[in-house]
């Protein structure tokens, strides 16, 4: 009885709990090989995948990597609104946000295809190249302006279509800054969706950047970690398994 009441109260305070569940499911899907996730596709080229699974795979990866850092923002907007809009605000905000990353994924896949097929760049160098770019981006002031801009959430109108529109607008702005902050990292992931250890490492990094009080202190360490990864994924360094 008491346990159930306490649990309900906790849920009252955490309208983003459902979305947190989605993150957990996404990670399970990615980590359990038999579930048909990245593990089972290990070693295969993502271009070889049919369009639909590739899109679904990208969305799962976005949910696993980019949702954790966005949960506090969704919670903040939901708690600041009327009771009846809490779930609606959370779902709308996070869906539009994931939508922004889906659009980015489409562009990134197209660019990767163009680079490999159109320009004849050796596929083996795309991932290390993008990670090297990510390491450099880590050291630029624009990266940190984008991270700070992610913290900016304007309060939403109380009800109706205006509230929905403002919520979607907030998610678009938030997503845009998030893309500005994390684009090289996620572009790298778009070409390396099978690489679990890289995914775990980069998730920890991008989530820490979003939630740290003085995020730009992570510039140097983050750049070092990403640059290290770029070296490790160079062809010949790590045997493909």
């Amino acid at each position, binding site marked *: 009885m008491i346990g159930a009441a306490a649990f309900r109260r906790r849920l*009252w305070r955490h309208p983003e709990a459902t979305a947190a569940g989605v993150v957990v499911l996404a990670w399970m899907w990615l980590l359990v090989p038999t579930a048909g996730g990245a593990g089972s596709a290990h070693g295969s080229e993502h271009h070889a995948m049919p369009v639909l699974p590739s899109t679904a795979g990208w969305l799962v990866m976005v949910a696993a990597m980019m949702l954790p850092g966005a949960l506090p923002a969704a919670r903040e907007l939901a*708690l*600041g609104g*009327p009771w009846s809009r809490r779930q609606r605000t959370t779902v709308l905000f996070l869906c539009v946000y994931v939508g922004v990353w889906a659009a980015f994924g489409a562009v990134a896949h197209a660019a990767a295809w163009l680079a490999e097929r159109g320009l004849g760049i050796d596929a083996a160098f795309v991932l290390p190249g993008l990670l090297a770019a990510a390491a450099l981006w880590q050291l630029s002031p624009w990266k940190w302006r984008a991270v700070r801009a992610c913290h900016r959430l304007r309060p939403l109108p*109380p009800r109706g279509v205006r509230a929905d529109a403002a919520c979607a607008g907030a998610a678009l702005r938030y997503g845009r800054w998030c893309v500005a902050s994390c684009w090289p990292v996620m572009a790298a992931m778009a070409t390396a969706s099978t690489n679990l250890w890289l995914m775990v490492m980069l998730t920890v990094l991008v989530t820490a950047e979003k939630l740290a009080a003085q995020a730009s202190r992570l510039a140097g360490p983050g750049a070092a970690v990403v640059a290290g990864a770029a070296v490790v994924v160079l062809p010949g360094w790590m045997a493909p398994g």
Partner: protein
Amino acid sequence: MSETSGNGGRRGARVRRDIWSLEEEQPWHPITRAYALGVREMQSRADSDPTSWTYQAQIHGMPDGGQPDDFRGQCQHQTWFFLSWHRLYLHWFERVVQACVEANSSIDYEVRAGWALPYWNYSPGGTRATLPAAFRDAAMPDGSPNPLFVADRNDFVNDGEELDPRAVLIDRALAPTVFSRPRPDGGFGGAETGWNHFNQDVRRMPGSLEQTPHGSVHVEVGGLMAGFGTAGLDPVFWLHHANIDRLWESWRLELGRPDPDVVSAWGTTRFRFHDEKGNQTSGTAADVLDTAADLDYTYEDIIVPAPTRRGRRGRVQPPSASEDSATGRSEGMPPGNDGPPAELVGATEDAVELSGGTQDVSFRIDRPRGPAADQRDAAPGRVILTVEGIEGVEPGRSADVTYAVYLNPPGDEDPDADPEQFFAGTLDFFGLEEVGSLGSDTTGHDLRRSFDVTDLVEALREEGRWDPGSVTVSFRPLRRGRRRAADDAQREVTAVRVGRVGLFVE
């Protein structure tokens, strides 16, 4: 490194005295003069010296929102660390001044041995709400330049006129019965957050004391005092914060309100400082709860005065009545995140611009739909007015106008009604210049303020002045001395955009 307050536990702690009782005893009281000489000594030191005047001010905020380091740009606002961080900050500053005073042979032996930072208790109003002459005279009694004088303040303050009573009101500041609350209000001491210089944590929300009198006095004194990065350069800053620290003691000890859990993040988060020799040190909230034993000071007077006319609806209960049914509804709630959450029942649809004049906004109120709906008939829950998404229309400018906030104030048709019976609180914009810039980790987003209007709404309801379907919120600029009209004509006011004015019920 750990807390190294060497005098810890010594009997007969130093007494921080009221600046006005000193100055009424004797203008340029020896304690005041010793402070001036200490400030002069600190001002003569190189900026890079942690015990210099400039460095000490930069601990609070870097000029022009510059990037913080481990020691500078550290002040904690809109967070539950506000009071404990400033207590540590003041303590180490006081030690620096004490060292300067002790080394100065032109100061009486007794003053040298027992000097402590005075406080400025402006709340009784009248003369007490003016700046003592020792802070307004350009010269010290011996004719030398007065280090306590700063030209960069609002004119009426340096002219010796009093602050508006609504800027120095403490009734509402002392009213909350719990130290910390999650949004929409922050309780007495601010919402639980991580390290939060200004707005790093989305959960940020200032407590009642941080708003008024803290923020309002900052802005009403104006000039250097109105900005994060410059406030510590005005010698009166330290007396203002000693008073805020004293009011924390009033709330804890006189009103008997409980501290947060000392093993929580509140009690254990460590902040770094330098001691009077320039050596690194650090401390936590748990290290500084007993001022006499831990930090070697007490206050001359922490008695809580009777509520004022405006404050009567501000929920100040006499200490003995604190556990009765009148406050029981909030008293029974754990001070953490486990109480039923508040829900928004109405808010403005559009942003509201405040540019120095009176501004009224009205909005629709709906019935609560969550836990507050069930609770409502048994024991009406709390009602909280919020002002959120506050930013300067022109980024980078400090706040220069403070507003009094009224709910459903009577219009001209009711000239007999006392407008102060509709007073909800004082709205300050201290920290406004930090909003909007993305140039460093410490600057950025918005200011938030909140007012517990439970008793005001109850009183209005009883008087038949409360419409459950809508509310009018009126923002009226504070008075600024006798010359206000003339001042205003020349003054270019910093316009402020308020993202949303809202009403929450719990």
